[in-house]
């Protein structure tokens, strides 16, 4: 089933130094990818508290991809803090019956066009299997 624009939305938190220009490079190359993807430009994703992610799922976001600068992060130490926080979010997601794969932390550089499209396609594949957030716990029950 093709996922439509207004249904299974994927939120992409893209760093302004790396992944956001990377997403623009995908556009400059006129590579196509599903339109259920919403890229938000962030200075550093370390700013989001755990509840931000859980709230997004509650609001109906199917999947979140944090596209960071990885170890190239211009804010020394921010990536490590982010990675530790994402681990905490995974634990909280499990407690809430959410498949932790709905949240993905990855590095996307300014020219990583193929990586960008691959991440988007993989998340789309996953959410088409899982359905809406919370559906997985119902399936398990």
């Amino acid at each position: 089933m093709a996922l439509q624009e207004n249904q299974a939305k994927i939120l992409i938190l893209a760093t302004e130094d790396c992944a956001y220009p990377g997403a623009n490079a995908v556009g400059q190359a006129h590579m196509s990818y599903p339109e259920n993807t919403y890229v938000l430009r962030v200075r550093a994703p370390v700013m989001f508290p755990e509840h931000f992610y859980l709230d997004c799922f509650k609001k109906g976001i199917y999947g979140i991809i944090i596209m960071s600068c990885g170890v190239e992060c211009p804010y020394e130490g921010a990536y490590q803090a982010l990675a530790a926080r994402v681990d905490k979010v995974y634990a909280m997601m499990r407690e809430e019956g959410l498949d932790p794969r709905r949240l993905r932390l990855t590095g996307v550089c300014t020219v990583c066009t193929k990586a960008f499209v691959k991440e988007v396609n993989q998340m789309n594949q996953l959410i088409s299997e899982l359905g809406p957030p919370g559906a997985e716990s119902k399936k398990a029950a």
Partner: protein
Amino acid sequence: MADDNKDKKATSEQKVGVYVCHCGGNISDHVAVEEVCKNAEKIPGVVKVQNDVFMCSDPGQELIMEDIKNGTVDRVVVASCAPDLHSSTFRNAIQRAGGNPYIYEHANIREQVSWVHHGDQATNKATRLVAAAAAKARELQPLEPFKVDAKRHVTVIGGGIAGLKSALDLARKGLDVALIDKSPFLGGWTAKWDRAFPTDDPVSELVTALAGEVLNSEKITVYTCSRITAFEGFIGNFKLTLTQAPPESDAYEDEIKRLSDSGKGFGEFVPLAGICPAGIPETTTTHDIETGAIVLATGFLPYAPRYGEYRYGESKEVITLPELIRIMAENRQKGVGDTLEINDRKIRSVAMIHCVGSRQIPGIHEPDAKGNLNEYCSRTCCSATLHAASMIRNNHPKTRVFDFYRDIRTYGRGQEELYEEASDSKVVFFRFEADAPPEVTRNTGSGDFPLNIKVKDTLTFDEELEMPVDLVVLAVGMEPGNISDLVEMMKLPVGVDGFLQEVHPKLRPVEIAQSGVLLAGTCQAPFDMGETCSAASGAAAKASAILGKGYVELDPFVAEVDLNKCLGTGTCVNACIVEGALSLVEMDVDGEKVKRAQVNPALCTGCGACVAVCPENAINVKGWTLKQYEDMVDMIVSDRILPSQTA
């Protein structure tokens, strides 16, 4: 508290204007702009929606400025291309109309919508991105950029023609300059050439003119045999450590020998080496430099052919164009005969092959050891080859020249003439396809020619032609210089071709993403000497414009504490990743002495590590608050703006 309530009330009444760009047809061919505008009228807080063929054009900007001037809107959303292209255009327009430039938000509906999606879904996505941007815009507050004192000093890295030109232009503007080169010489690759096309200037004159003035300038300090070994700071206030050391054992051996053989002194031009300003250091020393801007003039490397590529390395009769140029320059000092001579061997016929190490095609050409192919055109080698071919024909009329090319790209002013001149001087041309390059073999047939060259010539409808030659010259292209140490240390952006990447080739041609660091010349792409000097002057002009005021303005996106919410828990201070950027200080609140968080805006980098940990959300990065993101997500999932049947 009263003020706080007033602010909140103001926030709920922000008047957002939405301006949607067609970008010619770049956006409107795939996104129904009229429909986005119609939908945008339903977005909470939006009071005005307009569209234009080009929002970045003067009439487009006028639409925004009019609405700001007459008070119709006080927050602006432009839906157009990627924000790094035109944010400053629209911010400046708002400022010219008397508004604060930070009341602006961008919706990226070109790179992230119309260029990647099509049809109704593209229009719907564009609408949602506009709605999200408007939600963020409602929470934007006017901000003031920081003014930070800037050092009126520029460091130019690289003492080739680009570095010399930049340094001179900066000094003439009254700025102090440190000019650094890793070698003992000034002049770079230019000094190792002979005569520069298309004007046929001797490079000795160019380098002597530029370096002479550099060495005489009181504003310029030259450091040769030096490398940057530490880098920190930001625009206006960089701190560099230079390490000046004797060259490694065999480095610059040829140039140093040429210097001592020439009998020339320091500051004098030595052919095929350059100008050695002050000898070679015997010990290692370090220098700390405080500088306001950095110009990268680190240059290129000529492509080094693989062993066996057109028999290079296997046959001493196969050489590169730079090697030929050096030989011809040395010959001239000895006097020239009617036949070109190399090592006392008469060259009766020479084959010149274009595009060696340039325009490489995956599947046809062999990648280098790192798996890279030079897919770009090096742009300068056609003109350089034809210039050299004419020089051979004019100086040595008994030497025949055969030119093997894929395409002739003598693209600049005065350069098409080089092609005509080569044709007129009876250079014979052959054209080959990329997948059928000329074959160079040892000549086993008649005559005493050492080499044989065979080509399928498309000019004669794929006729196979073969001829014996005395010399094969490979027109090698340009490769990025080896500056991995600087790339790593300064986090420089590198393009897919390995050259340093500017922000935008037209809008910000000599700038990189890192403010205050500028590009001059062939570190950016293959340029000829004229283009290199233009880029060098561009970088110098940009650096002078940045530092001319004596201060720089930095974006005010730093953390801010809401004292109405802060309880002084100190969690933000523990989470802060920059030493000294955030601290707990004692202050008086409602007559009580309490501890509260305080930001040092000069040190805060605005990463937001503090935002995530505050239980009260009492700290946020200005212009990028958590609430803004929450509001944006609300608009992305909302079904208020788009009718539900679009689902």
